[in-house]
């Protein structure tokens, strides 16, 4: 039995994690791998940094895995996520599920990665070919500093 979720500063050992899900009662194994792409929203990416609020992320990820097991009736599920600097092509996140049959394995795997992306306090900073960088999803919704100073106090 392995921890349902872990962070890793080193490359994720997929074979080792997959082996922890092996179970003679399971006929189906479904997995997802998230890879670092070389572009995002029209910009060429050179490398990424992942940062996480680990204490909360681990708790929430364990809840997500437990939800998947309960909802889809799978036997085992686990997830691993990188933190730190990643190059294009590297594995950022892995989700694996083993179950009696493929249907629930696929569904649980999809559920886990979707929830992970939506709920976990993990942030990604992209470093672009031009030399600049930005926090994904943050830069667009940030007001410019001079506008912020003129604004009234936040509620």
């Amino acid at each position: 039995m392995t921890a349902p979720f872990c962070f890793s500063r080193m490359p994720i050992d997929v074979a080792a994690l997959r082996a922890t899900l092996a179970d003679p009662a399971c006929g189906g194994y479904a997995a997802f791998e998230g890879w670092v792409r070389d572009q995002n929203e029209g910009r060429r990416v050179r490398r990424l940094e992942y940062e996480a609020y680990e204490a909360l992320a681990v708790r929430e990820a364990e809840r997500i895995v437990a939800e998947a097991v309960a909802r889809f009736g799978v036997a085992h599920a686990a997830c691993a996520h990188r933190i730190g600097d990643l190059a294009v092509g590297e594995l950022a996140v892995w989700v694996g599920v083993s179950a009696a049959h493929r249907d629930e394995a696929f569904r649980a795997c999809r559920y886990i990665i979707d929830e992970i992306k939506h709920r976990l306090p993990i942030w990604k900073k992209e470093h672009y070919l031009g030399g600049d960088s930005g926090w994904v999803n943050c830069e667009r919704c940030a007001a410019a500093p001079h506008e912020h100073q003129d604004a009234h106090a936040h509620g």
Partner: protein
Amino acid sequence: MQYFALLREQAGRGTESLVTAARTPRELYAELAHRYPFTLDPSVLRVAINSEFGDWSAPLAEGDAVVFIPPVAGG
């Protein structure tokens, strides 16, 4: 306090202990936004108190660990 990602860069630090008159996370963020050049509006942030998701209106107690969570991008 712990600061992450864009908030960490704008605060210039990853952690901070502070004494505050703020009674809720909402008041606390307003106070910090006067001290640091935070550009993220509270409407796009979540709050965590003592390593669990919390409420902007939750009463803060002595020793509480508060984290404001910028828009996430994991996975």
